[in-house]
């Protein structure tokens, strides 16, 4: 067997791949569900916190900033392990799926809050003043004038963050979540062949490459002339 054949047999073994493809497909399903939940809940929670912060109440802002800094500083894996292995101590036993979802949601919430907040504060004061001078309330100004501009500015950094954090679904494999990497790893152990990992990598590409492309498209579409 030549080196090249050995390489193909190790990483691109079609027999092994065919056998474990259904497992990887199942893992993809879990990953998609998890990713969708993380993105929707994380971004909504981040936007909600940024809006609350824009009201400018110190009593609300301090806990928000604290929580945001905490979840930006902790590695997502630590949060997953803490929730999955720590919460049972207080009689809460979230599943591997819920633990991974909550952890990534908190992390995305924290990072997206910072990005939304930066977007809101980057809108010039004159925009607020012009709108308020015509009688628009704080809330109407925020919704009609500031947010539409702020959200456009946030799209590029937000897409990058969202993709980076959503890929963290692979961390769920540590708490035995049957997502792509978890399924691929057990397939590797069972078959004594790493080809399922190649399949897993392909699965990630299929899921995340479109996200990257959509992000790029949004970025160009949302641009406007000043």
């Amino acid at each position, binding site marked *: 067997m030549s080196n090249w054949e050995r390489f193909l047999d190790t990483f691109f073994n079609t027999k092994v791949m065919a056998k474990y493809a259904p497992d990887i497909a199942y893992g993809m399903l879990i990953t998609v569900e998890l990713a969708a939940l993380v993105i929707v809940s994380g971004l909504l929670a981040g936007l909600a916190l940024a809006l609350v912060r824009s009201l400018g109440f110190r009593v609300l802002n301090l806990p928000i900033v604290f929580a945001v800094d905490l979840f930006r500083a902790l590695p997502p894996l630590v949060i997953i392990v803490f929730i999955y292995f720590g919460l049972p101590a207080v009689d809460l036993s979230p599943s591997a799926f819920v633990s991974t979802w909550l952890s990534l949601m908190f992390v995305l919430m924290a990072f997206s809050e910072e990005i939304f907040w930066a977007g809101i504060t980057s809108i010039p004061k004159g925009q607020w003043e012009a709108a308020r001078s015509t*009688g628009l309330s704080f809330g109407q100004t925020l919704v009609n004038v500031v947010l539409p501009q702020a959200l456009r500015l946030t799209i590029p950094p937000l897409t990058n963050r969202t993709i980076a954090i959503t890929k963290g679904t692979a961390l769920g494999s540590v708490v035995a979540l049957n997502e792509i990497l978890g399924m691929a790893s057990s397939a590797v152990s069972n078959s004594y062949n790493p080809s399922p990992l190649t399949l897993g990598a392909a699965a990630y590409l299929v899921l995340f490459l479109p996200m990257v492309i959509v992000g790029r498209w949004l970025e160009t579409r949302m641009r406007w002339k000043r």
Partner: protein
Amino acid sequence: MGLVVEARGLHKHFGALHVLKGVDLLLAERELVFVIGPSGSGKSTLLRCLNRLEEPSSGSVVVDGVDLLHPRTNINHARQRIGMVFQSFNLYPHMTALGNVTLALRKVAGKSRAEADEAGRAALARVGLADRAGHKPGELSGGQQQRVAIARAIALEPRVMLFDEPTSALDPELVGSVLGVMRDLRESGMAMVVVSHEMGFARNAADRVLFMDHGVVVEEGPPRAIFEAPTHERTRAFIGQIQKH
């Protein structure tokens, strides 16, 4: 003749800075008052107190019979009656000219989209931009942007218009179009307070000129008196300075 704006004893502190030191400004219907003075004299702050974009530290502001500083006054309601135009236009860049003009008509004045569009187009026509309704601010010249900003304010049918250095950010050749719109507005009988360095416009159009320095009104009177026979040394010095250019 009724007073449209009645501001008395206005003080404004920014921390240790005492920017307004007891300023009165009374504006009659159909009157155009021009406020001049060196930068930092408090003229913009005075203007911004008249619609409470700046909260006066003390004093009273009554516009169109409404006490703006009364705790029960709905400031958003009151502001519909007070149009404001800014030095840097402050148009909403994500909306068309018509969208800029109609936003408050829909959200504050409660007009339907069709009514707001009609009123908005009429306002754009008054500033000579009927054909630019569908353009975004980025596609308009500075002068056109400022005229859209004026349309945005007059569409709400205010009782008084406040102009905060409306031509200072414009290239010289675009100033005329904005002043032209302001002149039309004046001829229609709009009460106006104008903070500006356009002394030629002040001479021709103002009923009264206020000269401010260091947070007080040093001198006021008809433009001819202020420009040609100022009685205070500081006024003389300022008029002399600007007329050298």
